[in-house]
């Protein structure tokens, strides 16, 4: 791991949040067609300050404060994208993406296929839990869009990937949903790779090499998986490989198959709820392509199937914890 979590900042380090801002800044400087749309993103800099300073730098015509109208904003971004702009839409919390579900799934996702209309746009927003945000400020709605051909979905776990994937998303000729984990915003930081750092969409990242059990995960639970892997190695001598998906649509089938064929044991971890989550899709793919390589059933560690509650004992109980991952890996290793 080259990223660091917590602790004092070293020279030249950028947080996950700053990395996203840097990427948008660099893309706006590179391409005059890139513009930002969202609620309170201008002079105020956004609820989490992700766009802080960008209005001062690029002006009100490229950093546009909008009414509270998620469907309106996403629809307007699509129209501007048809005309050659490259809008980046901020949803104040990704929980509000459901207000734009129709626009994204019916209009945006189908535009190229049904009408040959380019729709290059990014829809981004703070996602995820572990922050005591309650049912409407903690969601992970990625699986609701996984089922929609025409969209792309990325969900980085490191600051460098956040930057590189944002740049790739802005340059992509289709709509990319960019999930940002708010727990990681200021907790994860690292020195950025030099130059024009672009991370290709659709490529997973091997976060830790191992030989006994594979964990496939993404976003905040990558860090829990890495913590569990350290513990499993030191306490139980189990060598765990951790694959950080980074992109959820398209999935990196090649990397998924490679790690399963290497360790023959697979645990899928996600913070999203269980039923209909991405783990189910990955499980189906692995069973279709790697059945002969499996020495154990595929297991899942996910949130429980409940709306995410607010109070710490409740939230901690519902969301996947490091100890859950340790328990699941030990069960797989014992097979």
């Amino acid at each position, binding site marked *: 791991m080259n990223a660091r979590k917590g602790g004092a900042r070293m020279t030249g380090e950028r947080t996950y949040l700053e990395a996203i801002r840097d990427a948008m800044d660099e893309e706006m400087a590179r391409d005059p067609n890139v*513009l930002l749309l969202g609620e309170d993103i201008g002079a105020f800099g956004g609820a989490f300050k992700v766009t802080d300073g960008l209005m001062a730098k690029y002006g009100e*015509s*490229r950093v*546009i404060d*909008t*009414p509270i*109208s998620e*469907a*309106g*904003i*996403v*629809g*307007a*971004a*699509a*129209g*501007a*994208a*048809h*005309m*050659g*702009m490259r*809008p980046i839409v901020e949803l104040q919390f990704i929980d509000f993406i459901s207000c734009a579900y*129709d*626009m994204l799934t*019916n*209009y945006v996702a*189908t535009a*190229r*296929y*049904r*009408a*040959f*209309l*380019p729709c290059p746009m990014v829809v981004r927003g703070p996602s995820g839990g572990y922050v005591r945000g309650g049912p409407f400020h903690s969601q992970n709605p990625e699986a609701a869009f996984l089922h929609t*051909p*025409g969209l*792309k979905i990325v969900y980085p776990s490191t600051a460098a990937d956040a930057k590189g994937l944002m740049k790739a998303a802005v340059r*992509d*000729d*289709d709509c990319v949903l960019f999930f940002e984990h708010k727990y990681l915003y200021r907790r994860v930081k690292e020195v950025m790779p030099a130059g024009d750092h672009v991370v290709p969409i659709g490529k997973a990242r091997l976060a830790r090499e191992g030989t006994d059990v594979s964990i496939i995960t993404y976003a905040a639970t990558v860090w829990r998986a890495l913590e569990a892997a350290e513990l499993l190695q030191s306490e139980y001598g189990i060598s765990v490989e951790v694959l950080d998906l980074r992109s959820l649509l*398209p999935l990196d089938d090649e990397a998924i198959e490679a790690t399963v064929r290497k360790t023959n044991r697979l645990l899928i971890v996600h913070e999203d709820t269980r039923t209909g989550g991405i783990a189910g899709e990955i499980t189906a793919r692995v069973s279709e392509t790697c059945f002969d390589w499996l020495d154990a059933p595929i297991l899942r560690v996910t949130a429980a199937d409940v709306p995410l509650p607010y109070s710490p004992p409740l939230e901690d109980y519902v969301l996947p914890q490091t100890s859950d991952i340790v328990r699941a890996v030990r069960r797989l290793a014992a097979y």
Partner: protein
Amino acid sequence: MARAGKAPARSKGAAVAVTRPSDALSREQRIALYRYMRLTRVLEERLVALYRQTKVVGGLFRSLGQEADAVGSAFALEQRDVLSPLIRNLGAMLVKGATPLEVLRQYMAKGNSPTRGRELNIHFGDTETRNFIGQISHLGDMVPVMAGVTLSFRLRGEERVGLVYIGDGATSTGAFHEGINFAAVQRCPLVVIVENNGYAYSTPTNKQTAAKQFVDKAIGYGIVGVQADGNDVLAVYDVTKEAVDRARRGEGVTLVELMTYRRKGHAEHDNQSYQPVREIERWAEENDPIDRYVKVLRDTQGVTDDELAAIEADIVALVDSATDEADASPMPEPTDALVGVYADPAIVPPLWFRESVRSAVDANERAQGWGTYDG
């Protein structure tokens, strides 16, 4: 609530000008308005015939009695302006340059239709040269989209205008509200036309809104609102042209309510049982937009029977040859279904059980006559 067959008076909200924008139209342009309205009607009548022959795949949607609203409004745009039509705006699309051949191929699901068989009916567009964008079925969605299209014009300093239609029914959607409000706040060069044809499928306007008239909604958005007789093609042209000019001058959004009447059902299969007795007939007899305009052309332009007959012959010949060509056009290649969901990857790989199978129906099955497998 039964709707009177009388045209409403021209709105108090409309600009009271000594000269009307339509005064500047040449005789040739005035005849073009007629031609587009007749072409709309003849083409739709041809589609009805093809529908009954089962050559139209899926539903058929008519704009009978609303041709003036579509044609007169689109005629106020320039080529560079972008139009976003609805299902009853075939006439507007023809004005923008859509061809009968394209429309026929669309309705017949042909492989060389403008959407290559991916979308139905007049859900198609062209943003390269003619500048119209196909609608989706989720009514109201095109309003935010056109807010964005016209936002890009304003941001780039292009003197282009957008025109989006919304039905009386879809003014009840959230997308309409979000889109028109966004466009109003951003002072987008957008004209929003509410086509009040009395019905959303079977629902009359008094079950759609408690507002006395749709034009009143403009006040709430802080934009100009005007109302006009949608069956008077020159009145439609006048209010739309004024709205387009305002937008081009940077004065923002106008809501235009056009009063018209839907004489056919929501789609061809709709028996219109909910429309009061004699209502449809009264509109047909007393307020047909084409009949009304023919009288205007005769009275003010001295248009003769011979001229009208020549136009008719020209339209019929055009629709005839387009019908033949569309009918002879190939259906799409099945595997084209996998192309172009994304720019990259450009093609979706076939599912394993369709690998090296070019059709959904293999040698052991019959495309027609399911249940009579006799292999």
